[in-house]
């Protein structure tokens, strides 16, 4: 029972504990990769699909899938955000377009970022977006409004038992500091 052995073992075990703390955080990207492969948690791909890759021949003439759109804003976000179409019916394999309305209700320029989610989660990997406002941040001047488009198709491979799916977006506050000074920023926090 030499003192050196004790020190060595203590250090090793402390390192193991620190390593396991890191492992907890490593689980986050691991889980994301796992979910991307299995499409478990309703996250859609963050990247645009290439138009050329669409297999139009697989389009299913006789099948209709109902898609519902939801829009909400995260805490602290001052925007009005809603879908222009509440729901549409689409044919798997065919291209579709819909728009979302957004208006900045605050008195300063705000940057927002929309984050999509699909329910049921299983369907997420079959919803392919060609173009989406969620691929980049949106900047709106005080009081400004705009319509933002999503171009997408539902993969013909969509399992037969899924006939309805919901695409929801939440608009997050990225920054409301643009064009406002520190004092305004502080007071806006106080109001909140």
């Amino acid at each position, binding site marked *: 029972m030499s003192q050196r052995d004790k020190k060595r*073992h203590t250090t090793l075990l402390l390192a193991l504990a620190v390593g*396991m703390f890191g492992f*907890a955080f490593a689980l*986050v990207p691991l*889980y994301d990769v796992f979910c991307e492969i299995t499409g478990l948690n309703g*996250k859609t791909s963050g990247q645009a699909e290439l138009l050329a890759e669409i297999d139009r021949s697989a389009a299913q003439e006789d099948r209709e899938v109902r898609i519902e759109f939801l829009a909400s804003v995260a805490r602290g976000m001052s925007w009005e955000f809603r879908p222009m179409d509440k729901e549409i019916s689409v044919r798997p394999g065919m291209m579709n377009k819909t728009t979302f309305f957004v208006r900045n209700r605050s008195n300063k320029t705000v940057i927002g970022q929309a*984050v999509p989610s699909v329910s049921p989660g299983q369907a997420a990997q079959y919803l392919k977006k060609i173009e989406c406002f969620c691929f980049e941040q949106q900047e709106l001047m005080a009081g400004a409004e705009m319509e933002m488009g999503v171009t997408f198709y539902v993969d013909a491979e969509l399992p037969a038992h899924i006939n309805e799916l919901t695409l929801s977006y939440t608009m997050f506050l990225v920054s409301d500091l643009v064009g406002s000074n520190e004092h305004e920023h502080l007071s806006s926090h106080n109001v909140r």
Partner: protein
Amino acid sequence: MDTHSESKSKTRHPLLAFAARWLLTTNHKEIGTLYLCLSFLLFFIAGSMAMFMRLELFEPGIQFIDPLYYNQILTLHGLIMVFGAVMPAFVGLANWLIPMMIGAPDMALPRMNNFSFWILPFAFALLLSTLFMEGGAPNFGWTFYAPLSTTYGPPSTDFFILGVHMMGISSILGAINIIVTIVNMRAPGMTYMKMPMFVWTWLITAFLLIMVMPVLAGVVTMMLTDRHFGTSFFEAAGGGDPVLFQHIFWFFGHPEVYIMILPGFGIASQIIPTFARKKLFGYHSMVYATLAIAVLSFVVWGHHMFTTGMPVFAELFIMYATMLIAVPTGVKIFNWVATMWRGSMTFETPMLFAIGFVMMFTIGGFSGLMLALVPADFQYHDTYFVVAHFHYVLYPGAIFGTMAAVYYWLPKWCGHMYDERLGKIHFWAATFAVNLTFFPMHFTGLAGMPRRIPDYSLQFADFNMVSSIGAGLLGLTQILFLYIVVTTIRGGRKATAQVWEGAEGLEWTIPSPAPLHTFSTPPVIAEGDYP
């Protein structure tokens, strides 16, 4: 160092000297006592919360407790029982017993030992202080699922997070100390395969602690950054996923439930051979079974979340892996039974508690097997059946194990025998009350009564009333236990060094009460000695 502090303390006020002795002690026996006292105190605090809950559940409807307050004491009951009662009790036993069992003069890192204990009172003071805060205490259950604890958690959640961090640091440091002690400080001749089972189970438990407590620290850190620093680990809207919380939590949580039972296995493996007057049957298989349980505990966390929408493949894998755990557990139970088989058994209180442990833990194990079945679990999930299951493994498991240990080693610690008649009354009353409290929960759960509610449908009324009566009785038996322990410490028939006729092991070779310093020169273990 000790003579130095003693000479200095003579000039101090006696109260100051008393405080300094316990605040600054680095002696494994004194720290073990501190751990046991703290866990006993917290056991009573969390137990009284259970009494309030059972009072509210005595009849349907809301009578005594505001539902929001019910959620708060329900959360604190779980957290304090897990982190404040069961875990520190086992650490206290480890502190007292491991050095005496392996023939070491003290723990390997005595100052760290002091530090890891003294974090705990502050951690629990912090946790309990949330009850008096604006917005109330944490109210999301001991599993603190996101988003209940992130988006919707009360402001006091941040105090809870800090408290969990402190408990985690304490557990990790304690576990490191135990491993370093066992690896480096065994007496000459005590090979790994000669170590008493209690030491073995604690060695494995300590590794589990080091592997999973940092993961718990990680998950509460993510909660903290989600709450205050704009991250979205568990916020679906921000690209995170609340189900991820459950994965990380149960990666900690499942090994955690074995942390709360493996030392109990060790205690039963010490006590049963003593009173059966036979050697432990299948020592080697006991060691390997414990290892197997520990390894399997890392791949079965998903059985807490079958209903979250896992792929069927994952559900099947986890179901089979979970049921596989029944094999090493069965090995242990059959070994205990085989140890008793044709032994010259006597039924002193520690033996009664140990046998009660084996029998009632098995009931909890079987309801665990039922819960492991995916199709059945969809029915049982979040019902009182789950409550019945984990209380059967924790009360007659972890807590009866601890009580068996206290009755068994208390004469060694304080030099007095406890009152055998009162001990037996305590055992039979507690056994009756445990079953009266928790057995009806199986039925209400199977009939669909959800857990974590202050009110319920009328058809569950009778069984709940029975549970509440049992719970009241169970609470009273613990006051009897407190009385027995206090009177034994204060006086009683003198205990011999061996205490029990059939007791074997190094701790029984030193006088009772155990002197403050033991095995300053290591004992020598001969070739033919135990196990």
